[in-house]
């Protein structure tokens, strides 16, 4: 959004400059007036961007989570700790967590944010968060917050154009910065030292995405006015899409209902 603001400021200054040359002597005072006008116009643009919010619900009863015991001194805390799968995180009212909701069509590709504070963390021998999103080209951090070693193995799908990597983080506090150049839903991360550790990162060409919280709620903000196809993607429960048209200030709601797939056999 910041680059849109700058473009509008610059455009407004050019217009003002032309007006002043034609009608008024170019003075610093008039120039500052135009600049202020451009700033107001730009901030108004940001303030009135649309948002889409909603809830993703799950129909059906998911299979029980599978478990694995860790006897690693770091992970087990000196004893044994049981780790559970996070394929289905379902809230009290059926809301489904860890659904990657994003604008699939209708949004223009934008330059990645320079904000590199998005973090995929390793805490207590688990990835946090389980599902997250980044833009293409956006730098994000992979951090080891555990007092021991992990390896971070990213496994993009063949043909996606994103590069597989496998790096060691043997020391607490180690941070590695990475980015993906191509859109992909979703890139799998795993730790080969601790096999129950895996997570997913969605990569899209714009900033209009969100991950549902544990109760299935999501919010996508900063949307320009337009017509969009929004997709809710869950690794097990499948995908659902919705066509949504938003105006400049609209706050639209879009709910999705996914279902537990039937048994394969």
């Amino acid at each position: 959004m910041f680059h849109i603001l700058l473009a509008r400021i610059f455009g407004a200054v050019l217009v003002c400059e032309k007006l002043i040359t034609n009608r008024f002597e170019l003075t610093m005072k008039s120039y500052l007036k135009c600049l202020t006008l451009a700033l107001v116009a730009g901030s108004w643009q940001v303030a009135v961007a649309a948002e889409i919010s909603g809830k993703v619900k799950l129909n059906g009863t998911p299979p029980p989570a599978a478990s694995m015991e860790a006897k690693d001194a770091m992970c087990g805390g000196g004893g044994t700790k049981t780790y559970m799968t996070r394929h289905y995180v379902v809230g009290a009212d059926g809301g489904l967590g860890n659904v990657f909701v994003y604008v699939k069509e209708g949004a223009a590709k934008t330059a990645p944010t320079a904000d590199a504070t998005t973090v995929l963390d390793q805490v207590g021998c688990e990835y946090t968060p389980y599902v997250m999103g980044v833009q293409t080209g956006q730098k994000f951090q992979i951090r080891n917050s555990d007092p021991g070693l992990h390896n971070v193995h990213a496994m993009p799908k063949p043909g996606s154009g994103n590069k597989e990597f496998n790096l060691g983080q043997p020391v607490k506090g180690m941070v590695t910065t990475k980015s993906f150049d191509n859109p992909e839903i979703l890139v799998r991360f795993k730790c080969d030292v601790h096999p129950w550790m895996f997570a997913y990162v969605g990569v899209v060409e714009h900033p209009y995405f969100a991950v549902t919280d544990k109760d299935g709620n999501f919010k996508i903000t900063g949307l320009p006015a337009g017509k969009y196809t929004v997709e809710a993607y869950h690794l097990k429960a499948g995908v659902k899409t919705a066509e949504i048209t938003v105006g400049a200030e609209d706050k639209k709601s879009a709910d999705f209902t996914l279902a537990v797939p039937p048994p394969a056999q």
Partner: protein
Amino acid sequence: MTQTDNNPWLTRLAVATALATFGLICVGGLVTSHGAGMAVPDWPTTYGEHMFLFPTSKWVGGVFYEHSHRLFASLVGLLTAGLTGWIWARETRGRARWVGLGAIAATLGLMGVRTQGMFVALAVVAVGVIGWSLFQIPRAERPIRWWAAIAFSVVLIQGVLGGLRVTALKDELGIFHGTLAQLFLVLVVAIAVVLSRGWRRAEKLPVYDRAGLRYFFAFTTAMILLQLILGATMRHQHAGLAIPDFPTAYGKWWPDLDADAITRYNASRNEIVGVKPITAAQVGLQMVHRIGAVLILAAVAWTAWVARRQLGGRSALTKFSLVWLGLILAQATLGVLTVLQNKPVDVATAHVAVGALSLVTGAMLTLTAMRLLPKPVREAEPFSGVPQPTAKLPA
């Protein structure tokens, strides 16, 4: 291979190398079964440290299996170097002896330069040594030293393949690494057999191989090798169990392989570890592996029956054919249990180990049949319709 003068300590070293190699295959099986092949992301270092100095406090989780595998492989490499050097020293004289021993020593010394480039360069040289050795074998009166040179070269290449699989992030190298391991085991076991006193003393059986038993052994062993390649391909794609039920596949005798079906299969999985999604090719591969198992069971059973008919029940070849059949039955059982129990680590690894034993047994039966069973001489030997009495191999 021809016989060589018996030295019991040399034979023991060969047997120890063969046993260590089998143990290494088992440890390698554990690595893949635990999904720990990439737990150490660098090579030839280990998390930036010298492999032999990596502190035991960091041998955690998957690192324990992968790092142990690398250390065990180094031991097998050293044993193979010692075996090759000893055989070379016994089989050569003068300049040829010192050139060979010097090459082995130089290789071991250069492996102290712990860089990927040096190891790859040595592997390239090793490929050349294999080619030269294969050229020399038909021309040599006593070719065992060339087989030993091949063994040393193969173990070096195996180490480099394993390392490159990690640094290059290539599943295909893992498949090749797993397959070559089995072939290396066959080679070192064959060397141990040829060096044994029993091999040296064995006499040709007074029975002509009219039924072509040697070809049965060879063909069935080749089928087992193909089955092992299929198995290695399945395991090293790291997608877990492609078909969760047996004897049906997703409830059918032949599973649906269309895109919707594959999506359904992946959605219904409840994987506890970070395996890749399964593909139609992987489902198809497992079906071919199942069919292959049935065919191999039939082929081994038929071969054992032919051996019994041709050689009689007391022949060592017949007895080992029945052992071979027992191994195949055990292997089939382990394969079924791998599916029914959702690929537990111990069962899946045992499946790898018994597969290796099945291949080695078939290869040794083939080797023994070719050595001890004379080919029929049609002009000299009138047909009597009655097989000759069975001779026993020396104990």
